[in-house]
């Protein structure tokens, strides 16, 4: 037997390891399975197996990778891992070195939840400014949930107990499974074609997968777009879904949603009675106030003694009349004096004076005129001498051979000239 034919275990193992490591398919393997024999070593590394119904593989996840995990792997947990397959030479076992691990289903859902929550939050779908006011006293309520089960029963019985006069419209829908989300969306849209005051959208408790439709983006957007205010009521108090964040009001449970949606009729009746009392008191106060006001007016000085109002006016009128009389009298007196003055005027009193004066003046003028009359001068001894009907003023003008006419004041003489002589006695010719 040729010993050279025989490989060492180490050589074989190295060979196999080389084969594994050089296979690209084994460099990145996506694997799903259930965790078993989980051990967290004090060094921080995780040692476990992944198994399904019929097979098993050893797995190791180093602390550098596993410290980023958002969850602690537990026995029996279904996980999705990514890693590389290689051989551990010491034991000759092949195993997967896990680089990334997600919880199968649940884990993905958590990530999807966080991602959608962040996306919608950034878009502002959860912002308070979009939250619609939930009416205090609705008359019509829409309920979107499964038509059977605890949720619909809790909602309807709670509403009927608290506020039986309210009308309920049930929009039955699927609340779990793949078709639930589109169905919920459809019902929200359908409900919006009804005249409803508020909508309750929800379901009873369940696993995160069961509640998942209420984490779907289309449901979130349908809730956001609803014109009718929406109260979300998904699962139990501890369960938060995307629907809860985008709804106008989040109720911890379906029963809670019904309590938030309607008032208690007993409280309402009490309030209404209180209002009636307040109303009566208010109107009494109003009327009483008017009455007091009226009384105060009635008892006012003027209304009590209306004569005062009259007296004042009378006095004013009297004053005015007196003033008027004074003014008129003053005017009359003034004109009377003026008239008297006119009457007392000299001319009017003795009109003959004017005549006498004028007569005297006339006499003066006449005597002046008489003085100037040449015939008057003749009376004083002067005469006028004419020759040939012309007055002669100098001896020079006189012709000796012609006759002269001398005019006196009382007649004329005709005479002839003897001789002409100057004042010096010399004869003129």
């Amino acid at each position, binding site marked *: 037997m040729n010993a050279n034919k025989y490989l060492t275990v180490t050589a074989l193992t190295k060979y196999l390891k080389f084969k594994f490591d050089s296979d690209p398919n084994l460099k990145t393997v996506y694997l799903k399975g259930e965790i078993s024999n989980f051990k967290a070593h004090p060094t921080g590394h995780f040692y476990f197996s992944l198994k399904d119904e019929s097979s098993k593989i050893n797995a190791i996840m180093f602390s550098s990778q596993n410290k980023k995990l958002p969850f602690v792997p537990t026995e029996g947990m279904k996980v999705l891992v990514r890693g590389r397959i290689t051989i551990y030479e010491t034991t000759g076992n092949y195993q997967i070195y896990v680089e990334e691990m997600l919880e199968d289903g649940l884990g993905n859902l958590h990530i999807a939840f966080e991602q959608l929550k962040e996306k919608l939050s950034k878009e502002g779908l959860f912002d308070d400014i979009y939250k619609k006011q939930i009416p205090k006293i609705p008359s019509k309520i829409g309920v979107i949930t499964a038509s059977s089960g605890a949720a619909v029963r809790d909602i309807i019985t709670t509403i009927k107990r608290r506020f039986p006069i309210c009308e309920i419209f049930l929009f039955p829908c699927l609340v779990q499974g793949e078709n639930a989300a589109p169905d919920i969306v459809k019902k929200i849209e359908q409900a919006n074609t009804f005249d409803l005051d508020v909508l309750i959208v929800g379901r009873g408790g369940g696993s995160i997968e069961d509640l998942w439709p209420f984490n779907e983006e289309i449901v979130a957007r349908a809730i956001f777009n609803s014109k009718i205010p929406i109260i979300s009521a998904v699962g139990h108090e501890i369960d938060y879904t995307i629907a809860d964040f985008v709804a106008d009001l989040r109720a911890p449970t379906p029963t809670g949603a019904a309590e938030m949606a309607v008032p208690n009729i007993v409280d309402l009746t009490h309030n209404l009675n209180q209002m009636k009392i307040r109303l009566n*008191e*208010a*109107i009494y106060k109003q009327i009483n106030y008017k009455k007091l006001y009226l009384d105060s007016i009635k008892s006012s000085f003027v209304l009590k003694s209306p004569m005062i109002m009259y007296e004042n006016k009378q006095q004013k009128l009297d004053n005015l009349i007196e003033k008027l009389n004074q003014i008129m009298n003053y005017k009359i007196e003034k004109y009377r004096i003026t008239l008297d003055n006119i009457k007392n005027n000299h001319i009017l009193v003795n009109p003959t004076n004017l005549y006498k004066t004028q007569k005297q003046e006339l006499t003066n003028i006449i005597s002046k005129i008489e003085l100037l009359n040449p015939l008057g001068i003749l009376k004083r001894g002067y005469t006028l001498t004419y020759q040939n009907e012309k007055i002669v003023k100098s001896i020079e003008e006189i012709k000796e051979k012609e006759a002269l006419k001398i005019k006196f004041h009382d007649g004329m003489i005709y005479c002839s000239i003897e001789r002409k002589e100057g004042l010096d006695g010399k004869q003129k010719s």
Partner: protein
Amino acid sequence: MENKNLKFEDKIKELEKIINELETGNIDLEDSIEKYTKAMQLVKECDEQLKNIEEKITKVVLENGETQDFQLEN
């Protein structure tokens, strides 16, 4: 002067408004009587609505938009 178009909540709101006005404002007598009369009518209507406990039957809305009476399963 019934307020049939008004919803219960609007009636209560209107009532609150009138009461506040009557309690705080100095309103004309005619106005306050008118408001009081209106408020009393609202009170009466609300009262009737609350006392009318004729139970409303829950309706279920079908896919086609029609409604039917709904009974809870036992």
